[in-house]
């Protein structure tokens, strides 16, 4: 193993690292003095400073986007299959596909930052987004517990900072602190679980663990290890009862940060969780069937799923802030996605991955619209959305697509995603053993239609409370952002009408 080859195989990550450093440097050299100027001098002279800071911000965003594009190219150049250091870096069609998806999500997140006024040090913010992206790529591309943990920490630390980035907003600080406290506690759990598993199996490679588990009987200590590891991931995907950070983080964090937490972090976590349980813990799958429960991790995940679906949907009914509503609905969607992992197998895993990917795309878009409305009206309560359809029909239409996709209405991606997931779950166990979970999930999505429709009711039916400020300027500020949002809406529609584009890719990439 030469370093050159290592560099070649890790080139996408390396490119993103370099981009992050370049962006940081640009931010430091050009943005800092401009930002300093605006702070130290009073309003009159602040104009020139803010213009140069805008220019530096645009430059940073451009470099970041360019770096991500190159990284996608690098992913495409990777060999089909490779394994380094006992699974620390694994390249398969699946990992390559999901690296691209993570990069694309980061790409759209960066587009959302372009007109976010609250982010003062743009260069640093973008650099942190890129670091988080590296975390995602490491997570996706590893089948070894230590490396996964490093990826988790890199991702987690970046996200904490991103959540707390708006120093002028108390809520942002609260979001960051809550996210950090819960996150570090759950990391401790995960690390503890991993150490137990390592102690029992003597290895940290997922494949090796699986081989060990297949021969040895399951001891209580190992069960504790498995459950603790799952707890850490349940936190990352915001499954109840480990979701308590989500509402505050979604509501308080700057909009792009919230979008990234809700999308990229979730996708990567599901990929890794799927790998850990389906590869590493495969011999202790157990069964969550109604009359045939067998101990293993799948009953644990099934219980998490059931609880998340019920709690997420019921609590979302009572929300009056759109971001909080999205947070609770995220809990419910984590529950649905877990169904795919409970089902297991190629079908279940690919259904879960399809669902979480389309969900991530939808949420980035939805947060984009939230950012737009926040810009326009200064808030993101449901009442701020009243009359959006007369102010900006385009944004209203996009939001309709996002909300209806989340509710699972055809012909949008969410509908097919649900069909795929529930079918995989039903097919997995003999004599419809998982029907109870599927029925529960369907009941949950029935409840969810109500609150998604309430959002649309505010947008389309209710009249605007009072004439807002200058909408024109908002629209012109937001050209880049609105086109990114429309692109995402088009993607949601396209993935609903022709789900094969993604579903076949994922299925073909499955080992």
């Amino acid at each position, binding site marked *: 193993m030469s370093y050159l080859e290592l560099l070649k195989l890790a080139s996408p990550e390396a490119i993103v690292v370099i981009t992050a450093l370049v962006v940081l440097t640009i931010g430091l050299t050009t943005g800092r003095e401009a930002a300093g100027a605006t702070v130290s001098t009073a309003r009159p002279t602040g104009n020139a400073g803010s213009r140069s800071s805008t220019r530096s911000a645009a430059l940073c965003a451009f470099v970041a986007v360019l770096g991500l594009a190159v990284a996608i190219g690098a992913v495409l150049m990777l060999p089909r299959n490779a394994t380094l250091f006992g699974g620390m870096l694994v390249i398969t069609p699946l990992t390559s596909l999901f690296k691209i998806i993570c990069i694309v999500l980061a790409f759209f997140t960066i587009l959302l930052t372009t007109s976010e006024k609250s982010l003062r040090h743009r260069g640093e913010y973008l650099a942190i987004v890129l670091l988080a992206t590296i975390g995602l790529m490491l997570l996706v591309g590893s089948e070894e517990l230590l490396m996964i943990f490093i990826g988790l920490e890199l991702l987690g630390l970046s996200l904490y900072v991103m959540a707390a980035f708006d120093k002028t907003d108390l809520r942002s600080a609260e979001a960051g602190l809550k996210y950090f406290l819960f996150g570090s506690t759950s990391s401790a759990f995960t690390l503890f679980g991993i150490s137990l598993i390592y102690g029992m199996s003597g290895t940290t490679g997922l494949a090796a663990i699986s081989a060990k588990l297949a021969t040895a009987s399951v001891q209580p200590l190992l069960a504790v290890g498995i459950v603790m590891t799952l707890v850490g991931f349940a936190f990352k995907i915001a499954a109840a009862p480990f979701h308590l950070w989500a509402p505050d983080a979604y509501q308080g964090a700057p909009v792009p940060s919230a979008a990234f937490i809700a999308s990229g972090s979730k996708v990567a976590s599901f990929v890794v969780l799927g790998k850990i349980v389906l590869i590493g813990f495969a011999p202790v799958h157990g069964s969550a069937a109604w009359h045939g429960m067998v101990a293993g991790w799948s009953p644990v995940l099934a219980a998490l799923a059931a609880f998340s679906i019920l709690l997420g949907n019921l609590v979302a009914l009572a929300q009056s802030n759109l971001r909080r509503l999205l947070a609770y609905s995220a809990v419910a969607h984590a529950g649905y996605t877990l169904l795919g992992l409970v089902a297991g197998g190629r079908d279940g895993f*690919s259904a879960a991955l399809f669902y979480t990917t389309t969900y991530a795309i939808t949420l980035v878009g939805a947060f984009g619209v939230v950012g737009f409305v926040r810009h326009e009206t200064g808030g993101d309560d449901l009442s701020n959305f009243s009359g959006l359809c007369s102010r900006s029909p385009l944004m209203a239409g996009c939001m309709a697509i996002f909300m209806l996709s989340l509710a699972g209405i055809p012909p949008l991606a969410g509908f*097919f995603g649900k069909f*795929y997931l529930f079918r995989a779950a039903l097919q997995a166990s003999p004599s419809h053993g998982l029907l109870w979970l599927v029925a529960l999930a369907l009941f949950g999505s029935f409840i969810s239609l109500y609150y998604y429709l309430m959002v649309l009711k505010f947008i389309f039916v209710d009249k605007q409370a009072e004439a807002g400020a200058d909408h024109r300027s908002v629209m012109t500020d937001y050209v880049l952002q609105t086109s990114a949002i429309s692109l995402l809406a088009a993607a949601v529609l396209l993935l609903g009408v022709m789900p094969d584009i993604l*579903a076949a890719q994922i299925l073909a990439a499955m080992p």
Partner: protein
Amino acid sequence: MIAWTIYITFAGALLLLFLPRIFARWIALLTTIGGLALGLAAFVCTPIADLAHFATIVRVPWVSALGIDYHLALDGVSLTMVLVTGISAVSTVLFSWDVENRQNEFFFWLLLVVAGCYGVFLSANLFLLFAFYELVIVPKYFLIAIFGSTNKEYGAMKLTLYSFFGGMFVFIGILVAYVTGGTLDLNQLAQFQFAPGLQSWAFPVLFFGFAVLAGIWPLHTWAPTGHAAAPTAGSMLLAGIVMKLGSYAGLRVAMNLFPQGFQMWSKSIAVLAVIGIVYAAAVALRQSDLKFVIGYSSVSHMGFVLLGLATANVLGVSGAVLQMFSHGVIAALLFAVAGRMIYHRTHTRELDALAGMNLSHALPFAAFTFVIAAAASIGIPGFSGFVAEITILIGAWKAYPLAVWITGAGMVLVAAFTLRALKQSFFGEAGSGVVRLQEGRVALDPDWNEQQSITAAEKIGACLLMFATLVVGVYPKLLLDRIMPAVEAMRFLKSGG
């Protein structure tokens, strides 16, 4: 070729999003006329023998990961439903001719509903059918919540949640059929032998899930509130076509896939259907809002459809399909009179208030239309309602003689409330006479004089509907010849006996 009904309607809806509003109603009209023309062309051109089985029109692979095909097919039953969709759609657009508020959006949602209905009636793949079925739900919400009248947000949400509640059960039933049968193709699934144990619970899950949309008692309460809250076009579409989606899918999917389950449950369906007929008619007798009267009459008439399906013989089921057609036309006509011709001009639907207006003098054409519609609704020979209901009752006589007796009593109630509504709305006592009438006019609507006459668009729409009910009433063979062979080919008859 008939597959293009779906495509042009979707294309029309998309066009509406991008074109300025002066084109809106013309695009909607052209699109719906195109749909009707395609339906009629298929009706004329397709040989009757080809309509006896569910013959494939289009079949292309769609989602290879799950083996889902984009598969459309046509038989006599679906052709009948496509026709009634076309007729209702054209007249609906004509009756919405002077919608002013957010015109493009209005016709966009309206065309989405129509396109979804075409899709359901032509789908031969369970996934596709369900996708179209669910696609219809949300546009209805917007049609009612944005453009409706009385208590619109409540009515819209209630209707949507009821539909989705039924859809939840349908989803379970479809998944079970798919996972057990291993395919989503309706024709293949209709050959598959499901275990009787499975059928006994999968059938009711699927059938009652669909039947929510058909307004089965006791899950019918969304229908009157929804119809009353909806704009005229919304109620016409809802009562005219959307309710039929439920009964059509119940026949095409639930009964056809699970024949043994159907046998076990057919009696319960018949009981619920008869209760629905009598109960809804009795409730309609006591309503003071004209739209509620018609809303409950829809539930009552849909009870006939369900009773026909429950008979499990060719006559009864064919009668049910004919009743779907007939009620689609009649309900559209009734709602057009109540919602457009009367409400638009008087701004009230209270029967007591209308009784004092002596509308038969003010709006003679509306009175004429309403008389025809009422006659068809009561089941006077010569109109489609009579043929359909008599066929259902003959079929039911073989299966459930008792049900026929009770239904017969129910029909008296239907006649009673229809005549009551007719008398109060158009032929009420004029009270203190013309002077009061004029006062009433001015107070109710400042533009009364401009709006007094029935517009040409309304006349054309009403004539289209009246023509349809008369033709089928006088010469039912036209449809029955195509429906009956298709019904005979369905599986539940063979294994039922």
